[in-house]
């Protein structure tokens, strides 16, 4: 979603002043925009056009591919891979909700209660990012290993019986099940939730809380009527920053999952690299993009907050 990083809208034209302003710097804003625009064209627009073209081509590696406006690729791809697409949305949504439930209290703590520990906790939140995504995900394979202490404890507490019944895990293991994939997604994208939440919460004027107290609001009421509404921009951008990459992720499903947890990203990877069905892979990428765009648009419309950052 490169739209998120786009430059702010240009200034509204100056209201008629007595003297017309000097025109010398007229082109300056456009020159300043040029590097960003070039970047967008080369790394976003051109690949998009190329992919869009690929998705309506037919052919084979030997004969070459030609644009035949074969839109049926989209229907076939959707018909074949809707379970994986649906699964991606569900897993990403579950991970986003978990991130919110875990991230909000933590961001609240950092913003209002951490005091001098604030910077330290912030560093702890960001620290995992100093190692690679792959290493962090592989670490979960050790944490959740079949004979490991975590799975042992969950077994003793009969938690896994419940999750097994729900279909989240299989037998007495966590790895290679949906639960492991959702845990991996949650862990990997948690900082993307915490940082915008923290930025939003930190901006809230502490005097508003005092005022709420003066007006005899209980702490829970203060949170419901003051803090939470004011943190909505953080909630919205945090959920977007978590949900969008999580729904296209394939590393977690690849490393922590099994055959029945493959997500749409895995399908695209397989189609592109293994089956060499480039049109289907491109079509699936566009379907994923369109689906995310639709869901995000709907979500932003419904969330009722004007500011996003």
């Amino acid at each position, binding site marked *: 979603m490169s*739209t*998120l990083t786009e430059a*702010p*809208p240009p*200034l509204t*034209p*100056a*209201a008629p*002043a007595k003297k017309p*302003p000097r025109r010398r710097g007229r082109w300056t804003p456009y020159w300043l925009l040029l590097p960003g625009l070039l970047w967008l064209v080369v790394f976003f*627009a051109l690949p998009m*056009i*190329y992919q*869009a*073209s*690929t998705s*309506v*081509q037919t052919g*084979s*590696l*030997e004969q*070459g*591919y*030609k*644009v035949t*406006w074969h839109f049926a690729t989209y229907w076939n791809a959707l018909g*074949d*891979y809707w379970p994986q697409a649906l699964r991606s949305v569900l897993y990403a949504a579950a991970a986003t909700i978990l991130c919110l439930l875990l991230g909000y209290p933590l961001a609240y703590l950092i913003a209002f209660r951490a005091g001098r520990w604030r910077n330290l906790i912030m560093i702890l939140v960001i620290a995992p990012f100093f190692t690679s995504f792959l290493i962090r995900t592989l670490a979960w*394979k050790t944490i959740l*290993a*079949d*004979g490991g202490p975590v799975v042992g404890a969950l077994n003793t507490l009969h938690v896994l019986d419940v999750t097994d019944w729900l279909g989240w895990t*299989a*037998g007495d*293991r966590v790895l*290679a099940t949906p639960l492991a994939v959702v845990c991996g997604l949650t862990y990997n994208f948690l900082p993307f939730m915490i940082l915008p939440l923290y930025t939003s919460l930190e*901006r809230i004027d502490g005097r508003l809380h005092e005022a709420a107290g003066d007006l005899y609001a209980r702490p829970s009421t203060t949170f419901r009527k003051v803090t939470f509404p004011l943190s909505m*921009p953080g909630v919205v951008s945090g959920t977007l920053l978590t949900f969008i990459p999580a729904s296209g992720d394939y590393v977690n499903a690849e490393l922590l*999952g*099994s*055959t*029945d*947890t*493959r997500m749409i990203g*895995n399908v695209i990877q*397989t*189609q*592109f*690299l293994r*089956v*060499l*069905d480039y049109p289907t892979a491109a079509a699936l990428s566009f379907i994923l993009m369109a689906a995310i*765009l639709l869901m995000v*648009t709907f979500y932003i*419309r419904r969330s009722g*907050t*004007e*500011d*996003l*950052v």
Partner: protein
Amino acid sequence: MEQYEPDDRLSPAQVAAMRRSLRNGRAALTRRSLLRASAGGALALGGLGSLSACGIPAAGKTAGGTSAEDHSAQEKKIAFSNWTEYMDVDDSGKHHPTLDAFTKRTGIKVTYTEDINDNNEFFGKIKPQLAAGQDTGRDLIVLTDWLAARLIRLGWVQKLDPANLPHAFANLSGQFRSPDWDPGRAYSYPWQGISTVIAFNKKALDGVEVTSVSDLLDNPKLKGRVGFLTEMRDTVGMTLLDLGKDPASFTADDYDAAIARLQKGVDRGQIRRFTGNDYTSDLTKGDLAACLAWAGDVVQLKADSPDVDFIVPDSGYLTSSDNLLVPNKARHKTNAERLIDYYYEPQAAAELAAYINYVCPVDGVKPYLAKIDADAANNPLIIPDKAMQAKSHAFRSLSAKEETAFEAQFAKLTGA
């Protein structure tokens, strides 16, 4: 916070801008502007008219011939791309003794890069250049059978000159001599052979006996603790052998039967997952009790963890190889051929085999290897004995159409 007093020398627009930035820069991105931008992006995509200009040219038709001018005589160097951990390394970890010896003898400097991690990925990487008839910047690459076959089929690699390969021609071991995709080894020579066997973790098995692929697929005591490989040919090939079919000459029906057999294992939750090289950590940890594995890995794993061992099923095992190829337009073809030939001299081959533990494709290595490492020389996984060779099978080459269909079927099996 102090209230900002606007200066009356500023224009209203500037004041508005400053106000905006004073509000913590929050107005920079609003819901409305994002929605507007999304709509704009969607509109831009609507301009599909330019799309028909694109297209991917036919892969086989390389413009301007296959060979470049051979600069071997003037430029004493060669660029060699290989897989990771596929070359001997000295204790400092910086030098490759066999390559150094080659440079010392011939004066040809080798730029050795370990940039191949995955056949499919590497194909994606070199495809644009080769399809456009350009130099990939590499003189020698190492690819697994099926991808080597595809490159030969596409006409993307150069025919080797037998005059430069006397040792290779004389010493290539019998089982690698004439694959159906490169009869007589006109384009390729094996770097190492790879055997696919069944590996297991004794501790995790806990007394359960595993002797065949059927045991992996059927034994209820192993439910959810069995792994197969994401390499279609290894997984399906071993299953075909288990079904009593020969992977060198199976039919589409046989293939369907093997896939159906595996599908049952997936549906019942018997197969935990399909893995690439990462099965090694699962196996040593005991998350996988038994799995299909590459013998070279198992030799190394065994050295580190005593619980890991392997068996060769009675029905046989699959042998494939990684092959040295000279891509089109490579600038130093003769140098590349000299390097290939060098690794077919028993001494160099023995030094390499002692270090990397894969199947050595060179005949007459045993006495040389025994001098370096007696255990390795007697290991049938490195130098196959008669009994081992008799059980070895190759996966037949596939036509382009078959390859796409089979890979698609296999992708569906592994969850797409």
